């Protein structure tokens, strides 16, 4: 189901191989008892991003997007797999990496809530040890591009969401990071602000060669910015390629779920392959373009079939939802 686009063969800036993140969740059962359950936020995730790329990273809520970003930035330690950003293992050398990356969280600010933008930026200059000349130059440029001039002396808490986002993006770029991660940078913004943020990101990517990885719910972000899109669902990479490729996903697979009268070894049948067995229930993948009827007939012929259902590819649901939102905004 995963298609891989050929990427330019420069050394990858971001490299993930077999990355997994498992959380242990304790749930209350009844009044006092609790059970432990493992939640696989990300499983076996592998991809690379080359220097200068601008990649959209999409998927439904809870798909593992934020978890991935948190691992890439060194906030979260992966449970398994190999992860390198600019040759650094994020979770081990978080502080060294921090100087080379920029992060924008759409839902919360990285600025100091009670301080004017100017003070926040000044403190970041110190913290990131940005040479004064470089700082002035960058700040002037961003103030100009993002029209921040009148906002510099306003405390962050008094800024509108769009204004704050412009401040946040500036804060993330002052130290000339090699990679910029944006987690929902356009969430909650009005159309004008969205357009402005997109324009700016394009400029930074093209002008500076800054590598950008952004998560979004807004397909327009992807259409206007990213040459490459990765789709994640249930913690797995479902698609990695260009946007057009998403449209021609007709050759993906559907899943036939069959309930047998008793637990049996994996069904062997032409036109479908078992991907999962759980007691009497089995999951068979078959080409989405093919009809399910011959497959069902073949199984019913040779196995004690009790019940069945067909699952559409999860990716279709994701894209359908994304398009619905894309049209709406």
């Amino acid at each position, binding site marked *: 189901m995963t298609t891989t686009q050929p990427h330019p063969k420069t050394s990858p800036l971001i490299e993930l191989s077999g990355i997994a993140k498992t959380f242990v969740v304790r749930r209350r059962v009844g009044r006092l008892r609790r059970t432990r359950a493992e939640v696989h936020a990300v499983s076996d995730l592998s991809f690379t991003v080359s220097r200068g790329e601008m990649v959209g990273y999409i998927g439904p809520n809870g798909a593992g997007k934020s978890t991935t970003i948190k691992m890439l930035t*060194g906030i979260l*330690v992966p449970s398994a797999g190999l992860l390198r950003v600019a040759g650094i293992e994020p*979770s081990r050398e978080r*502080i060294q990496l*921090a100087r080379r990356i920029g992060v924008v969280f759409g839902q*919360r600010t*990285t600025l100091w809530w009670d301080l004017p933008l100017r*003070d926040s930026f000044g403190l970041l200059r110190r*913290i990131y040890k940005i040479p004064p000349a470089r700082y002035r130059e960058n700040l002037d440029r961003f103030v100009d591009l993002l029209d921040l001039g009148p906002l510099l002396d306003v405390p962050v808490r008094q800024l509108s969401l769009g204004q704050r986002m412009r401040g946040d993006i500036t804060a993330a770029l002052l130290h000339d990071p090699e990679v910029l991660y944006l987690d929902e940078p356009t969430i909650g913004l009005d159309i004008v602000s969205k357009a402005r943020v997109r324009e700016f990101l394009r400029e930074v990517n093209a002008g500076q060669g800054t590598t950008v990885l952004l998560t979004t719910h807004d397909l327009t972000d992807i259409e206007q910015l990213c040459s490459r899109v990765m789709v994640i669902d249930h913690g797995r990479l479902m698609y990695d390629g260009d946007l057009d490729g998403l449209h021609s996903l007709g050759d993906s697979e559907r899943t036939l779920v069959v309930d047998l009268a008793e637990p049996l070894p994996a069904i062997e049948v032409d036109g479908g392959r078992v991907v999962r067995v759980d007691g009497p229930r089995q999951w068979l993948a078959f080409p989405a373009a093919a009809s399910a009827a011959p497959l069902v007939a073949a199984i019913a012929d040779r196995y004690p079939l009790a019940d069945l259902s067909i699952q559409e590819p999860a990716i279709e649901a994701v894209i359908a939802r994304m398009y619905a939102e894309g049209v709406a905004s």
Partner: protein
Amino acid sequence: MVDALRAYGWIITMWVRSTMAYRASFLMLTFGQFFGTGLDFVTIFIMFVHTDELGGFTLPEVGFIYATSGVAIGMADLLLGSIERIGQRIRDGSVDVMLVRPVSAFVQAAADRFALRRLGRILQSTAVLVWSLTVLDIHWTWDRVLLVPIMLICGTVIFCSVFVLGAAFQFAASDAAQVANAFTYGGNFLTQYPPTIFAKDLIKAATFAIPLAFVNWMPALHILDRADPLGLPKAFQFASPIAAAAITLVAGLAWRAGIRSYRSTGS
């Protein structure tokens, strides 16, 4: 380490500058702290309207004990008291923001919202300390003289560690921040009074479990030339630096464990 201290310096400088933009408000809050925390001493003073001795200690002696505890927690509160807000920061996700900056999260959490108004408590306690030292008839020997600054420093370190332990606990239970208060402000309350008024078990807990007794009780017993209610060896009265080092180590490990669990669970 140098980097961390520098970053701490920059962050607190910025907060001080931003505080000074509202000078009147700053002065009012500092006075508020001065008088507000001073009410604790007013309470003790009122007690002494009715009695000459509390647990065998006179007002100036209790004042000395009160003030040394007050300076210590005041300093700790000033230096890293903001760390007690870490539970709030875990809940609103801003710990993530700290973890993507090239400065240790500890420094950021400690320096966050550095509040110079907390000088109010330190000034108030210092005033009581100076008063008690002028009134008290202490037989000053070189070891007693030396013990005063040592106890203030060790007391500060011990309270800093208690603050950090409280913060580390919030990684496990982010909405039970109040538990930490029982040990920070509760510890301060405990060490405002002479040890002789408390049950032996409570003194033991404050000596061997959480070494609050080394903030001021132990050295004060030597300075004021009093018998130890537990009858512990004299060496305990000089052991504040060891107690401070031990609890600092434990607090450091607890904080690291807290951060590690955050980074493996994200909550």
